[in-house]
């Protein structure tokens, strides 16, 4: 279901601000029954820079559709941030972005 993720990462004074958006219906069991579709939601998101975890969250289907997350961490320009998401069916997706 999910196709793309949009990532923005900007560095300012040693702090990197990240905005990321994932495409997912985020439909849990009840909602899926109502709409007549299969349950599908992202259950796990992790972001890494140089193999160090900077963001990690486990979610249920009660996050809103196409989840948008924002966070900050200590980092520097030029590094690559790698996002990995896993949905309830075990499907994995990754996305990369250079920190500006």
């Amino acid at each position, binding site marked *: 279901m999910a196709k793309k993720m949009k990532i923005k990462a900007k560095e300012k004074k040693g702090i990197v601000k990240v905005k990321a958006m994932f495409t997912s219906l985020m439909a849990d069991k009840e909602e899926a029954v109502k709409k007549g579709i299969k349950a599908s939601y992202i259950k796990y998101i992790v972001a890494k820079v140089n193999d160090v975890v900077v963001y990690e969250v486990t*979610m249920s289907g009660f*996050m*809103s559709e196409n989840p*948008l997350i924002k*966070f900050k961490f200590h980092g520097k320009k030029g590094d690559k941030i790698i996002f990995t998401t896993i949905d309830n069916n075990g499907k994995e997706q990754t996305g990369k972005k250079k920190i500006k």
Partner: protein
Amino acid sequence: MDRRKFLGVGLAAFAAIVVPGTDLKAMNFRETKPKAWEIEKTVDGIKALYGNAGLKKSDKLTFKAPKLAENGGSIPITIKSSLDLESIALFQDANPRCLSCVFSVPKDAIIEYDFRIKMRQTAVVTIVGKERGTGTLYTASKEIDVSIGGCGG
């Protein structure tokens, strides 16, 4: 103390250290605490995820949320904290299962998380943070009015 007893005490102490140690390394909360994801009530959910430890209210753990949410399908929430927390969880009573999300906070992270949740109806949202090392639980809660339900209705 004779040697046999000493060894026993040592083993018990070792076990006591190791058990919370494995808890700290929990990466995927859905695998390590599958029960917590099925519980309906916030109070029971907190117990299932963090155990029976007492909750403390703290000014250092806060979250921003609108008082009145027009669209229950996407309620923006910002969690901020100056404490050294190892995990933060968000619970609400509006949905069939109370747990919305659990953050595992890496070391030296800036705790300022922004995300959106769904809520079916007006309910109290509670966030619980667990301090690194001491394991003290901090909490903050707020009631959010929802005018239109978010879960497909």
